[in-house]
């Protein structure tokens, strides 16, 4: 991780200064006017004629901490070629200074690199000084740095390819969680068979690496835990209903829901959150093999309900079905599942906003609130009676998807999942459109974004942690 130092002075060759709209400092007015910079959000201007050099970054009206995070990210993106930069935090509140640094680190840290050769084009930025006389910044940055580490771990899990990250090796990547006080339990395929987790087992049965359910626990200050559930398909070929070859490589990221659950519980542990939490990772590889499950197979799920398989590429909802049943048995305060579940959600909401579903209006409002405060925006979608009716099977308790061309698959998947949570307050977040981007944007490098970690951390902090 990029080293962030809180210091009273810095020798970095570039210093970032934040500028409110139409409040450009007098000494820079001429240069800013020449470039048309007025302090608008998302804009920056680099002034190299002074020593140290200055990057002015706009924060608009500065009313929102997210504007500072945006400015920090835009600054870092412009300064990736410098080994060290400073952020002038004089005049900023603690929250604003932390936001600038958070934006900078999250934008400047590249995705996991597995190169053997030196990459001449690699970003050089490895050190950020926050220049302030304010000692209060230390504890606030400690909290933020934990969240950033959790986001970066989630991103690395998503980026790691499936030849090294599989349901067996996944748990090896979770060592930092153990160090942070999280207990880890692996329920292997033999135990899953004994339990009757027929859906998770079926999805994984074609792969050389058998499926597993991983249970992570953060005790917090005790009490009934909130439970995160993550879809962890370490690679999704589609199975017998195999996907087209074009872009199939992206399916290494089909475990981004589980990575978000890992990141979220890790973030809670790193900031010693009082709220008890549990993360359940439903891990399987959906492979094509002689032993693969087939369309028309009828599976007996952990809940006892039978499910008719329609399309083996709709495997995420099957592994989640068993994980959700398992989660609900402990009567958690709430279940929040995350999954790269449907292309339908991408068609509906695109790459900016994740869609979610809930059986609890109050919980849903809280998640929307956490989304707007964390910058990971979410939008509620409906589960209609017609969505559930579409899952009626002629021979089983339900079928798991519908194959019409224009089927509202995201909504129908949510209707399917709802069958396995009982009365537990529940949120299902479909992150298929937002987990990874082909190109860098203002706030994120190219690739995995770690979407969900900050959303859930904020959700727990604001709505579950004692005030």
């Amino acid at each position: 991780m990029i080293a962030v130092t809180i210091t009273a002075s810095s020798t970095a060759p570039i210093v970032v200064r934040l500028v409110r709209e139409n409040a450009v400092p007098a000494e820079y007015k001429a240069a800013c006017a020449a470039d048309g910079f007025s302090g608008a959000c998302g804009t920056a201007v680099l002034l190299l004629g002074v020593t140290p050099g200055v990057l002015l970054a706009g924060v608009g009206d500065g009313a929102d901490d997210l504007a500072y995070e945006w400015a920090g990210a835009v600054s870092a993106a412009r300064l990736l070629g410098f080994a060290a930069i400073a952020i002038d935090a004089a005049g900023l509140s603690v929250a604003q200074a932390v936001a600038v640094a958070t934006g900078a680190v999250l934008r400047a840290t590249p995705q996991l690199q597995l190169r053997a050769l030196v990459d001449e084009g690699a970003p050089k930025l490895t050190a950020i000084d926050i220049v302030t006389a304010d000692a209060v910044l230390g504890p606030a940055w400690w909290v933020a740095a934990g969240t950033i580490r959790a986001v970066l771990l989630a991103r690395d899990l998503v980026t790691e390819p499936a030849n090294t990250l599989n349901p067996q090796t996944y748990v090896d990547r979770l060592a930092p969680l153990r160090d942070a006080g999280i207990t880890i339990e692996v329920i292997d395929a033999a135990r899953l068979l004994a339990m009757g987790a027929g859906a998770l087992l079926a999805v994984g049965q074609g792969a050389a690496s058998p499926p597993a359910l991983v249970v992570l626990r953060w005790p917090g200050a005790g009490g009934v835990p909130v439970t995160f559930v993550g879809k962890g398909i370490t690679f999704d070929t589609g199975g017998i209903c195999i996907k087209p070859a074009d872009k199939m490589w992206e399916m290494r990221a089909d475990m981004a829901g589980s990575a978000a659950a890992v990141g979220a519980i890790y973030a809670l542990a790193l900031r010693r959150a009082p709220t008890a939490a549990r993360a359940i990772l439903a891990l399987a590889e959906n492979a094509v093999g002689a032993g693969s499950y087939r369309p028309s197979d009828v599976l007996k799920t952990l809940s006892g309900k039978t499910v008719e398989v329609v399309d083996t590429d709709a495997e995420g909802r099957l592994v989640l079905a068993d994980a959700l049943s398992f989660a609900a048995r402990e009567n958690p305060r709430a279940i929040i599942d995350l999954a790269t579940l449907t292309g339908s959600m991408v068609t509906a909401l695109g790459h900016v906003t994740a869609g979610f579903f809930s059986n609890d209006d109050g919980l849903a409002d809280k998640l929307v609130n956490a989304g707007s405060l964390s910058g990971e925006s979410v939008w509620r979608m409906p589960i209609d009676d017609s969505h559930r009716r579409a899952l009626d099977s002629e021979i089983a308790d339900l079928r798991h998807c519908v194959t019409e061309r224009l089927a509202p698959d995201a909504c129908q998947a949510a209707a399917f999942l709802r069958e396995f949570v009982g009365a537990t307050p529940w949120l299902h977040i479909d992150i298929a459109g937002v987990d990874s981007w082909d190109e860098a944007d203002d706030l994120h490098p190219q690739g995995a974004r770690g979407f969900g970690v900050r959303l859930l951390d904020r959700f727990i902090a604001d709505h579950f942690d004692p005030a």
Partner: protein
Amino acid sequence: MLDVSFAAATLPASGALALLVPEGGTLAGIGALADAATGGAIARAFAAAEFSGKAGQSVTILAPGAGLSRVVAVGLGAGADISVRVCEDAGGALTPLLAKEARVMLAADQLSGAQAVAVALGATLRRYRFDRYRTTEKPEDKPKFVNLVVLTDAADAAGLWGREKALAQGVFLTRDLVSEPPNVLTPVEMATRIEALRDLGVVVTVHDEPAMRALGFGALLGVSQGSAQPPRMVVMEWHGGTPGDKPVAFIGKGVTFDTGGISIKPAAGMEDMKWDMAGAGAVVGAMAALAGRRARANVVGLVGLVENMPSGTAQRPGDVVTSASGQTIEVLNTDAEGRLVLADVIWYAQHKFAPSLMVDLATLTGAIIIGLGHEHAGLFSNDDKLSEQLLAAGLAVGEKLWRLPMNRDYDKAIKSDIADMKNIGGRAAGSITAAQFIGRFVKDCPWAHLDIAGTAWAEKDTPLAAKGATAFGVRLLDRLIADREA
């Protein structure tokens, strides 16, 4: 249309009798009298069929005695206060069970006037059948149900029915328009049918191609230029409110057939594109309903009517057209034509009428079906208050809406390299980027866009509509106005 009349709440001596039974299955009033007169036959049938009055349950008893040819009972479900929505669906459930009876007595003596009228409305809406082109159907295969006599002593029932009857007529006008085949219902023919609204007191103005050219409608005319059928824009004005009050404007997409143009659609399912004018159809039906009930409001309806065909004169992917607003549009997919039609009509609506608010309806995107399915239509708006009003109106009449987001991030998707915007934004968030496109033609006016591609047509029977055109939007718009009149 079903002929609905009202009579005193007494047990009929003959004919068919329809009962509405709350959960528990207890008979009261006329139902109890009928049970007594038939020696308990009705209660015995309930027990045998395990009918307990749950919503969705029904039972038919043939010739139970006491001169009755048939008794049909439908469950109302539980709840001390049965909503009019439940009553409508119960009425809708009665209709298919009564297809073989010409005249039916509805025992509404246990219902309020409003509830009784809601049952009649539900039965009426469900009874609609588009059979203009069935020339060889045997008479015995046609539904006979034409007369519904509502047995009620509620003094307000007959008066309330006048309003609902006008609404049903508006719904049926829309269903007729949407169901008509595209060789019959061309833009010119649809304009001609809209002119009939003059009989209701609606001021109708038809704009032909030269008129639209003079207005600078480059976007709409670009869509239409490949077709042998000339385009029309029809403006309907209903002046029922205070003179001088700004009107509410309804705008409808009316592509009478959409082949996709040069970006032609796959053959499978293309026949569905005859109902690509359902947004315009809904606006016409709503105007008829409002005029029919003499709504105390100023409302203007505008529909852009075109046919989208591939031909030597058709517009091409890559063409740049200039809209009436002056903004240029790079047409990258000729099958994203609805938004081009709406762009010009919405612009015109603002300039001509300075409306207090605008609602447009369009079968705009397949993406809305993938996003929401067939129960909710998509709602996009620049105004939270208008959104709340529409969501509430939708729930009240059973035409449900689900709001979806709009913002600057989505707007980026329609940035063009050479024009002010392009007409497609890619697969991701396809309905939202379409709404963003339309939004670029709205200036400082509360506006909502309803994407009704998933709700305008039903592949199977629904409680209030047989398979086919639903007329989604007519009742919603009527309710939106009614809530503002109150």
